[in-house]
């Protein structure tokens, strides 16, 4: 599995070689995260709505 890290601000998960979060543009990424949520259909997903996520992608449940 490719190494990944997560944005401390919006929890978006990116590959390790990325330095800026493509979702919120912050540079605060952490390799220490747990849980994984994959949003495929943000418009219809109730989980996406609960998490206030409008962009499809992978998200960490918890980022340290």
């Amino acid at each position, binding site marked *: *599995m490719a190494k990944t890290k997560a944005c*401390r*601000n919006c929890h978006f998960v990116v590959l390790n070689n990325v330095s800026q979060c493509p979702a919120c543009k912050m540079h605060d990424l952490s390799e220490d995260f747990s*849980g*994984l*949520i994959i949003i495929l*259909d943000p418009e219809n997903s*109730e*989980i996406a709505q609960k*998490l206030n996520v409008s962009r499809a992608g992978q998200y960490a449940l918890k980022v340290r």
Partner: protein
Amino acid sequence: MDFKLIILNARGAKMPIYALKTTLGQEKTVVRLIAQKAKTLKIPVLSLLTTDSLKGYIFLEAESQESAEESVQNLRHVSSRVIQSTAIPVSELDSYLIPKPAIEGLSDGDIIEVIAGPFKGVKAKIIRVDASREEVTVALLEGGDIPITLNADYVKAIAREEEEEDIFSF
């Protein structure tokens, strides 16, 4: 685990969520594989979820049980059998989805250390807690009277006001 099948649909109703058993340690691999498959084959799976607190299971939000079953068909490390009785409403997942807000346990007067962002390592005293925005406004202990507002996730309490008072109470 005793998940109840709840079929909820129509306008304004909740999407069902299904729980599936996976091989231990393969939860993240499985959700990524299902996501790729659902995307490629245009199976209406809306989201997938794994939590570290519930190992050996994944959750899948789909339009129907048929979609859920189709999305895991012939995939390794995931059981397709348990779907049938394992749809659960989103509300029951709340405790998994929403990590305990960092704001809980923070209150006015607490001494905190900033653990992320440009002020990382700086110590400050909380002067206001905004629970709804999950923000705290703090005054830096050294240098500057200007209050700064930070996301509660960015701070860690290192001393409580009552603890400071305790020093003088015995």
